[in-house]
């Protein structure tokens, strides 16, 4: 089961720029490797990552095989209002994972 680690400040001032750190555990198989029998190992990566802040998309990333395993992404956003941050990872083989974190804006 994919597990996600999310680091979002619990409180922030209005208009403050906050840093969000996310880490999703995933093997991120590149698709370039092959077994001893010569069979290519199919690609299995996370292809898309989205972050929504109260329903509004604040960050999006498209990932490629060059990403490392357990993709770690940090980004910034502006704390505008209290609410929920929703994170979504979508990958090959029907991989989909979501996570959420709440933030209080003073």
């Amino acid at each position: 089961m994919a597990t996600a680690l999310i680091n979002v400040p619990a409180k922030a001032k209005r208009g403050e720029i906050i840093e969000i750190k996310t880490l999703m555990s995933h093997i991120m198989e590149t698709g370039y490797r092959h077994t001893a029998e010569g069979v290519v190992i199919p690609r299995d990566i996370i292809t898309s990552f989205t972050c929504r802040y109260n329903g509004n998309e604040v960050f999006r990333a498209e990932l490629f095989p060059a990403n490392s395993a357990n993709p770690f992404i940090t980004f910034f956003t502006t704390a505008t209002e209290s609410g929920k941050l929703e994170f979504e990872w979508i990958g090959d083989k029907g991989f989909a994972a979501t996570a959420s974190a709440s933030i209080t804006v003073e």
Partner: protein
Amino acid sequence: MRNPGSRPSRRKFLDKRSYRMSGPILAGALLLSMPGFAAAEDLPQLCRFRRCDSYLADRSARRSRARAFAGAPSHQHLHPLPQWPVPGREVPGRSRTESGRFRQPLVRRPAPTSAGRCLQPQSRNDHAVLLPDRRTGARRHRMARQIDPVGWADRGHGGVSRQLARIGSDLDEGLLHTTSVSGPRRQRGCAWYGAARDAATRRSHTRIDGISDQNRRGRRRGTDRKSKTRCAAAGRERQHRVDDGPSHQPDGRGRPRRQHPRLQREKPAAEHGQFLSPPRAGRAQISTRIRLADSQKIVAIAKLSDGSFWSATTDVVVTLAACTDELI
């Protein structure tokens, strides 16, 4: 004031009865090197061109001077000096009792080539080349220097390279892209920044991985490379951060929106990712990790909302590859 030390040489030259060949070149050079004698009017006019170290070797000057004598056959090589006997006392600076050992021939043999000949002065445009627009210009004056021709990094002249331009054309607006351009033996990651289209041109700096790799007012040209080569210590995974600095204007203008890292194929891949940084991101800084199979060059490219592209490059030394094609 004449230099007394050069008098014997001058006498040798003026003596029509001398037929010896001692030191013609040295005598000429000595005369020229001394200002007092160079200004003397009784000396024959020396070569006016440069490299006049041996006026005796100038045959053309000798012939033209010989024609100045009336009645002289043109086929004879005559010396400018008078051809009739002159008493020794009439030669200035020479005593009658001087020994014949110092006599010089009237007409010398041709000087060796090494003695130097009078050459026409080169024009000022001698070093010029014809520019493509058929104007003349100084050679190598406006030539663009290739920063890294092997690695296809020549973006210093005329904008981004073809590879980067191609990638840019593939971008649709509003996304953040990270790609890498494959080189012959290199791989590189690129980060694309895109931004809202209403952004104004502004100063920005793009950083990769926290390395002081800044691109100031770079337009589309290459980076002001201040990158430091860093060693990816454990090697396997490397943090890849692309930072486009002052992008937190209240109106959200000038914010990069897309970032694409890319790696060369199978090392493990030329493309790393695309990252979109919308206006409300506040700070266009992204940090992630990337696989590196070999020491290579990583390029981060940011596309801003005003359509401009910014890039930063850094070299990474990998000590332990993360994405080798090991068998499982």
